[in-house]
Protein backbone atom coordinates (compact mmCIF):
# COMPACT_ATOMS: atom_id res chain seq x y z
CA UNK A 1 0.00 0.00 0.00
CA UNK A 2 2.92 2.33 0.43
CA UNK A 3 4.91 4.22 -2.05
CA UNK A 4 4.86 1.41 -4.60
CA UNK A 5 1.11 1.63 -4.96
CA UNK A 6 1.28 5.34 -5.33
CA UNK A 7 3.84 5.02 -8.09
CA UNK A 8 1.89 2.31 -9.80
CA UNK A 9 -1.36 4.23 -9.74
CA UNK A 10 0.29 7.31 -11.18
CA UNK A 11 -0.46 6.89 -14.87
CA UNK A 12 -4.23 7.09 -14.61
CA UNK A 13 -6.22 6.39 -17.69
CA UNK A 14 -7.26 9.96 -18.32
CA UNK A 15 -8.13 9.17 -21.94
CA UNK A 16 -11.17 7.26 -20.63
CA UNK A 17 -12.21 10.27 -18.63
CA UNK A 18 -11.87 12.49 -21.69
CA UNK A 19 -13.91 10.06 -23.76
CA UNK A 20 -16.77 9.88 -21.27
CA UNK A 21 -16.91 13.64 -20.79
CA UNK A 22 -16.88 14.24 -24.52
CA UNK A 23 -19.62 11.69 -25.15
CA UNK A 24 -21.94 13.56 -22.82
CA UNK A 25 -21.15 17.10 -23.91
CA UNK A 26 -21.20 16.31 -27.63
CA UNK A 27 -24.56 14.55 -27.36
CA UNK A 28 -25.94 17.45 -25.37
CA UNK A 29 -24.71 20.09 -27.78
CA UNK A 30 -26.01 18.18 -30.77
CA UNK A 31 -29.49 18.03 -29.29
CA UNK A 32 -29.80 21.81 -29.12
CA UNK A 33 -27.92 22.52 -32.33
CA UNK A 34 -29.74 24.39 -35.05
CA UNK A 35 -32.41 25.42 -32.57
CA UNK A 36 -32.86 28.89 -31.13
CA UNK A 37 -29.94 30.35 -29.18
CA UNK A 38 -31.90 30.23 -25.93
CA UNK A 39 -32.07 26.42 -25.86
CA UNK A 40 -28.93 25.77 -23.81
CA UNK A 41 -30.00 28.38 -21.24
CA UNK A 42 -33.53 27.03 -21.21
CA UNK A 43 -32.07 23.62 -20.54
CA UNK A 44 -29.96 24.73 -17.61
CA UNK A 45 -32.78 26.77 -16.06
CA UNK A 46 -35.11 23.79 -16.35
CA UNK A 47 -32.48 21.71 -14.66
CA UNK A 48 -32.33 24.18 -11.80
CA UNK A 49 -36.09 24.07 -11.30
CA UNK A 50 -36.20 20.30 -11.43
CA UNK A 51 -33.41 20.10 -8.89
CA UNK A 52 -35.56 21.97 -6.39
CA UNK A 53 -37.73 18.87 -6.27
CA UNK A 54 -35.56 15.91 -7.21
CA UNK A 55 -31.88 15.39 -7.18
CA UNK A 56 -30.85 14.62 -10.75
CA UNK A 57 -27.54 14.58 -12.60
CA UNK A 58 -26.65 17.59 -14.74
CA UNK A 59 -27.02 15.46 -17.85
CA UNK A 60 -30.36 13.99 -16.81
CA UNK A 61 -32.30 16.73 -18.59
CA UNK A 62 -32.56 16.31 -22.31
CA UNK A 63 -33.92 19.01 -24.55
CA UNK A 64 -34.57 18.11 -28.14
CA UNK A 65 -35.92 20.22 -30.94
CA UNK A 66 -37.73 18.27 -33.63
CA UNK A 67 -39.14 19.70 -36.80
CA UNK A 68 -42.43 18.04 -37.60
CA UNK A 69 -44.23 18.97 -40.83
CA UNK A 70 -43.95 22.72 -40.55
CA UNK A 71 -43.85 23.23 -36.80
CA UNK A 72 -41.17 22.69 -34.24
CA UNK A 73 -41.69 20.44 -31.26
CA UNK A 74 -39.65 20.93 -28.14
CA UNK A 75 -39.10 17.57 -26.53
CA UNK A 76 -38.08 17.46 -22.92
CA UNK A 77 -37.09 14.37 -21.02
CA UNK A 78 -35.85 14.03 -17.48
CA UNK A 79 -34.20 10.86 -16.23
CA UNK A 80 -35.19 10.47 -12.58
CA UNK A 81 -32.92 8.64 -10.17
CA UNK A 82 -33.88 5.04 -9.47
CA UNK A 83 -34.27 5.37 -5.72
CA UNK A 84 -36.81 8.19 -6.06
CA UNK A 85 -39.72 6.15 -4.63
CA UNK A 86 -37.86 5.31 -1.45
CA UNK A 87 -36.89 8.92 -0.84
CA UNK A 88 -40.38 10.35 -1.27
Amino acid at each position, binding site marked *: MGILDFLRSKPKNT*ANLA*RERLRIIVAQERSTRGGPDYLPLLRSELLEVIRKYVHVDPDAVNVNLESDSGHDVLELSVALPESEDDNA
Partner: protein
Amino acid sequence: MTEILVVTSGKGGVGKTTTSASLATGLAQLGKKVAVIDFDVGLRNLDLIMGCERRVVYDFVNVIQGEATLKQALIRDKRLDNLYVLAASQTRDKDALTQEGVEKVLKGLEEDKFDYVVCDSPAGIEKGAHLAMYFADQAVVVVNPEVSSVRDSDRILGLLASKTRHAENGSGEVAQHLLLSRYNPVRVAAGEMLSVQDVEEILGISVVGVIPESEQVLAASNAGVPVILDNESLAGQAYQDTVARILGEERPLRFLDVQRKGLLKRMFGG
Protein backbone atom coordinates in the same frame (compact mmCIF):
# COMPACT_ATOMS: atom_id res chain seq x y z
CA MET B 1 -14.97 21.61 -62.50
CA THR B 2 -13.03 23.19 -59.68
CA GLU B 3 -13.24 21.38 -56.33
CA ILE B 4 -13.22 23.74 -53.40
CA LEU B 5 -11.76 22.14 -50.29
CA VAL B 6 -11.74 23.92 -46.94
CA VAL B 7 -9.35 23.00 -44.14
CA THR B 8 -11.05 23.99 -40.92
CA SER B 9 -11.27 23.08 -37.21
CA GLY B 10 -12.81 25.64 -34.91
CA LYS B 11 -9.91 25.53 -32.49
CA GLY B 12 -6.64 27.30 -33.30
CA GLY B 13 -3.21 25.73 -33.43
CA VAL B 14 -4.39 22.25 -34.36
CA GLY B 15 -2.56 22.09 -37.69
CA LYS B 16 -4.84 23.69 -40.31
CA THR B 17 -2.13 25.69 -42.03
CA THR B 18 0.33 22.78 -41.89
CA THR B 19 -2.38 20.59 -43.42
CA SER B 20 -3.44 23.12 -46.08
CA ALA B 21 0.14 23.48 -47.27
CA SER B 22 0.73 19.73 -47.40
CA LEU B 23 -2.58 18.80 -49.03
CA ALA B 24 -2.23 21.51 -51.67
CA THR B 25 1.34 20.43 -52.40
CA GLY B 26 0.37 16.75 -52.47
CA LEU B 27 -2.47 17.37 -54.91
CA ALA B 28 -0.13 19.37 -57.12
CA GLN B 29 2.48 16.58 -56.99
CA LEU B 30 -0.17 14.33 -58.50
CA GLY B 31 -0.60 16.71 -61.42
CA LYS B 32 -3.58 18.74 -60.25
CA LYS B 33 -3.63 22.47 -60.81
CA VAL B 34 -4.00 23.84 -57.29
CA ALA B 35 -4.40 27.18 -55.57
CA VAL B 36 -4.14 27.45 -51.80
CA ILE B 37 -5.70 30.51 -50.18
CA ASP B 38 -4.97 31.93 -46.74
CA PHE B 39 -8.27 33.15 -45.23
CA ASP B 40 -6.68 34.31 -41.99
CA VAL B 41 -7.06 38.06 -42.52
CA GLY B 42 -4.62 39.95 -40.33
CA LEU B 43 -2.57 36.86 -39.48
CA ARG B 44 -0.87 35.83 -42.71
CA ASN B 45 1.06 32.57 -42.17
CA LEU B 46 0.54 30.20 -45.04
CA ASP B 47 3.14 32.09 -47.11
CA LEU B 48 5.78 31.20 -44.50
CA ILE B 49 4.82 27.53 -44.38
CA MET B 50 4.87 27.42 -48.20
CA GLY B 51 8.19 29.28 -48.23
CA CYS B 52 7.08 32.15 -50.47
CA GLU B 53 6.80 34.99 -47.93
CA ARG B 54 9.28 37.21 -49.71
CA ARG B 55 7.41 37.03 -52.97
CA VAL B 56 4.08 38.33 -51.67
CA VAL B 57 3.20 41.55 -53.48
CA TYR B 58 -0.57 41.47 -53.66
CA ASP B 59 -2.96 39.54 -51.46
CA PHE B 60 -6.48 38.11 -51.34
CA VAL B 61 -8.08 41.38 -50.25
CA ASN B 62 -6.28 43.35 -52.99
CA VAL B 63 -7.94 41.08 -55.54
CA ILE B 64 -11.35 41.38 -53.88
CA GLN B 65 -11.10 45.15 -53.85
CA GLY B 66 -9.91 45.31 -57.46
CA GLU B 67 -6.45 46.65 -56.61
CA ALA B 68 -4.78 43.71 -58.32
CA THR B 69 -5.77 40.97 -60.71
CA LEU B 70 -5.88 37.36 -59.64
CA LYS B 71 -2.98 36.70 -61.99
CA GLN B 72 -0.86 39.36 -60.27
CA ALA B 73 -1.67 38.09 -56.80
CA LEU B 74 -1.20 34.35 -57.31
CA ILE B 75 2.32 33.31 -56.31
CA ARG B 76 3.64 30.37 -58.27
CA ASP B 77 5.37 27.75 -56.14
CA LYS B 78 9.11 27.41 -56.73
CA ARG B 79 9.00 23.61 -56.65
CA LEU B 80 5.79 22.76 -58.49
CA ASP B 81 4.66 24.94 -61.35
CA ASN B 82 0.99 23.90 -61.14
CA LEU B 83 0.75 25.12 -57.53
CA TYR B 84 -0.14 28.68 -56.52
CA VAL B 85 -0.49 30.55 -53.23
CA LEU B 86 -2.83 33.45 -52.52
CA ALA B 87 -1.66 35.22 -49.37
CA ALA B 88 -3.90 36.66 -46.67
CA SER B 89 -4.15 40.37 -46.25
CA GLN B 90 -2.40 41.94 -43.27
CA THR B 91 -5.20 44.46 -42.85
CA ARG B 92 -6.83 44.75 -39.47
CA ASP B 93 -10.18 45.35 -41.14
CA LYS B 94 -12.06 42.12 -40.58
CA ASP B 95 -14.77 43.26 -42.99
CA ALA B 96 -12.35 43.24 -45.91
CA LEU B 97 -13.50 39.74 -46.78
CA THR B 98 -17.00 39.66 -48.21
CA GLN B 99 -19.05 36.80 -49.54
CA GLU B 100 -19.31 38.44 -52.97
CA GLY B 101 -15.57 39.08 -52.97
CA VAL B 102 -14.71 35.50 -52.11
CA GLU B 103 -17.14 34.25 -54.74
CA LYS B 104 -15.53 36.49 -57.35
CA VAL B 105 -12.06 35.11 -56.62
CA LEU B 106 -13.28 31.51 -56.67
CA LYS B 107 -15.05 32.13 -60.00
CA GLY B 108 -11.81 33.55 -61.40
CA LEU B 109 -9.93 30.41 -60.33
CA GLU B 110 -12.59 28.26 -61.94
CA GLU B 111 -12.19 30.21 -65.21
CA ASP B 112 -8.46 29.61 -64.98
CA LYS B 113 -9.19 25.87 -64.87
CA PHE B 114 -7.89 25.12 -61.41
CA ASP B 115 -8.67 21.56 -60.32
CA TYR B 116 -8.52 22.30 -56.60
CA VAL B 117 -8.77 25.38 -54.43
CA VAL B 118 -7.64 24.69 -50.86
CA CYS B 119 -9.00 27.23 -48.36
CA ASP B 120 -6.95 27.54 -45.16
CA SER B 121 -9.48 28.67 -42.56
CA PRO B 122 -8.72 30.89 -39.59
CA ALA B 123 -9.63 29.60 -36.13
CA GLY B 124 -13.00 30.32 -34.57
CA ILE B 125 -16.48 30.33 -36.05
CA GLU B 126 -16.62 34.01 -36.98
CA LYS B 127 -16.74 35.62 -40.39
CA GLY B 128 -13.37 34.47 -41.74
CA ALA B 129 -14.00 30.85 -40.84
CA HIS B 130 -17.54 31.09 -42.16
CA LEU B 131 -16.41 32.48 -45.52
CA ALA B 132 -13.62 29.90 -45.81
CA MET B 133 -16.15 27.07 -45.57
CA TYR B 134 -19.13 28.71 -47.28
CA PHE B 135 -18.34 27.71 -50.87
CA ALA B 136 -16.73 24.36 -50.08
CA ASP B 137 -17.49 21.12 -51.88
CA GLN B 138 -15.29 19.19 -49.47
CA ALA B 139 -14.06 19.86 -45.97
CA VAL B 140 -11.08 18.53 -44.07
CA VAL B 141 -11.79 19.00 -40.37
CA VAL B 142 -8.50 18.90 -38.50
CA VAL B 143 -8.80 17.58 -34.97
CA ASN B 144 -6.26 16.85 -32.24
CA PRO B 145 -6.82 14.02 -29.74
CA GLU B 146 -7.71 16.46 -27.01
CA VAL B 147 -11.04 17.44 -25.43
CA SER B 148 -11.48 21.02 -26.59
CA SER B 149 -10.41 20.24 -30.13
CA VAL B 150 -12.83 17.31 -30.41
CA ARG B 151 -15.71 19.36 -29.08
CA ASP B 152 -14.94 22.25 -31.45
CA SER B 153 -14.73 19.98 -34.44
CA ASP B 154 -18.18 18.64 -33.66
CA ARG B 155 -19.46 22.20 -33.84
CA ILE B 156 -17.71 22.71 -37.14
CA LEU B 157 -19.22 19.50 -38.53
CA GLY B 158 -22.61 20.90 -37.57
CA LEU B 159 -21.89 24.20 -39.34
CA LEU B 160 -20.69 22.39 -42.47
CA ALA B 161 -24.03 20.61 -42.61
CA SER B 162 -26.06 23.80 -42.28
CA LYS B 163 -24.16 27.02 -43.00
CA THR B 164 -22.67 26.41 -46.43
CA ARG B 165 -23.74 27.23 -49.96
CA HIS B 166 -24.60 23.61 -50.65
CA ALA B 167 -26.67 23.32 -47.48
CA GLU B 168 -28.52 26.56 -48.14
CA ASN B 169 -29.23 25.85 -51.81
CA GLY B 170 -29.98 22.19 -51.27
CA SER B 171 -27.33 21.46 -53.88
CA GLY B 172 -25.87 18.43 -52.17
CA GLU B 173 -23.72 18.00 -49.12
CA VAL B 174 -20.23 19.12 -48.29
CA ALA B 175 -18.11 15.96 -48.19
CA GLN B 176 -16.65 15.74 -44.69
CA HIS B 177 -13.19 14.35 -44.00
CA LEU B 178 -11.94 14.11 -40.44
CA LEU B 179 -8.17 14.39 -40.13
CA LEU B 180 -6.70 13.45 -36.76
CA SER B 181 -3.40 15.24 -36.28
CA ARG B 182 -0.62 15.40 -33.68
CA TYR B 183 -1.33 11.80 -32.79
CA ASN B 184 1.06 10.20 -30.35
CA PRO B 185 0.77 6.37 -30.25
CA VAL B 186 3.00 6.14 -27.16
CA ARG B 187 0.65 8.33 -25.16
CA VAL B 188 -2.41 6.58 -26.56
CA ALA B 189 -0.99 3.23 -25.45
CA ALA B 190 -0.38 4.70 -21.99
CA GLY B 191 -4.02 5.79 -21.74
CA GLU B 192 -3.03 9.43 -21.73
CA MET B 193 -4.47 10.37 -25.08
CA LEU B 194 -7.72 9.71 -26.93
CA SER B 195 -7.31 7.00 -29.56
CA VAL B 196 -8.39 7.10 -33.21
CA GLN B 197 -11.32 4.87 -32.30
CA ASP B 198 -12.32 7.15 -29.42
CA VAL B 199 -12.41 10.20 -31.66
CA GLU B 200 -14.26 8.40 -34.44
CA GLU B 201 -16.81 7.09 -32.00
CA ILE B 202 -17.43 10.42 -30.28
CA LEU B 203 -17.82 12.33 -33.54
CA GLY B 204 -19.59 9.54 -35.40
CA ILE B 205 -17.40 9.79 -38.48
CA SER B 206 -14.31 7.91 -39.57
CA VAL B 207 -10.96 9.52 -40.20
CA VAL B 208 -9.49 10.21 -43.63
CA GLY B 209 -6.02 10.17 -42.12
CA VAL B 210 -3.97 10.24 -38.94
CA ILE B 211 -0.94 12.50 -38.86
CA PRO B 212 1.51 11.59 -36.11
CA GLU B 213 3.03 14.18 -33.84
CA SER B 214 6.37 14.70 -35.52
CA GLU B 215 9.46 16.81 -35.00
CA GLN B 216 9.82 17.06 -38.76
CA VAL B 217 6.79 19.35 -38.89
CA LEU B 218 8.67 22.09 -37.07
CA ALA B 219 11.77 21.48 -39.18
CA ALA B 220 9.67 21.76 -42.33
CA SER B 221 8.07 24.99 -41.24
CA ASN B 222 11.46 26.38 -40.26
CA ALA B 223 12.63 25.71 -43.79
CA GLY B 224 9.45 26.83 -45.55
CA VAL B 225 8.97 23.42 -47.15
CA PRO B 226 5.59 21.69 -46.67
CA VAL B 227 6.22 18.53 -44.63
CA ILE B 228 4.61 16.33 -47.31
CA LEU B 229 7.77 16.91 -49.38
CA ASP B 230 9.84 15.24 -46.65
CA ASN B 231 9.49 11.64 -47.79
CA GLU B 232 11.46 10.41 -44.79
CA SER B 233 9.12 11.85 -42.20
CA LEU B 234 6.16 9.90 -40.89
CA ALA B 235 4.02 13.03 -40.98
CA GLY B 236 4.93 13.56 -44.64
CA GLN B 237 4.05 9.98 -45.52
CA ALA B 238 0.79 10.20 -43.57
CA TYR B 239 -0.13 13.34 -45.53
CA GLN B 240 0.62 11.53 -48.79
CA ASP B 241 -1.75 8.74 -47.76
CA THR B 242 -4.36 11.34 -46.87
CA VAL B 243 -4.16 13.02 -50.27
CA ALA B 244 -4.56 9.65 -51.97
CA ARG B 245 -7.64 8.90 -49.85
CA ILE B 246 -9.18 12.29 -50.60
CA LEU B 247 -8.80 11.37 -54.27
CA GLY B 248 -10.68 8.16 -53.61
CA GLU B 249 -7.89 5.63 -53.19
CA GLU B 250 -8.14 3.14 -50.35
CA ARG B 251 -5.09 2.94 -48.15
CA PRO B 252 -4.76 1.45 -44.68
CA LEU B 253 -3.91 3.80 -41.82
CA ARG B 254 -0.25 3.75 -40.82
CA PHE B 255 1.83 4.84 -37.82
CA LEU B 256 -0.86 4.09 -35.24
CA ASP B 257 1.20 1.65 -33.20
CA VAL B 258 4.02 2.27 -30.82
CA GLN B 259 7.25 1.98 -32.72
CA ARG B 260 10.06 0.46 -30.69
CA LYS B 261 12.69 2.31 -32.61
CA GLY B 262 10.90 5.57 -32.10
CA LEU B 263 10.71 4.94 -28.38
CA LEU B 264 14.40 4.09 -28.07
CA LYS B 265 15.26 7.11 -30.12
CA ARG B 266 13.14 9.17 -27.81
CA MET B 267 14.84 7.78 -24.71
CA PHE B 268 18.39 7.91 -25.94
CA GLY B 269 18.02 10.90 -28.18
CA GLY B 270 19.26 8.94 -31.24
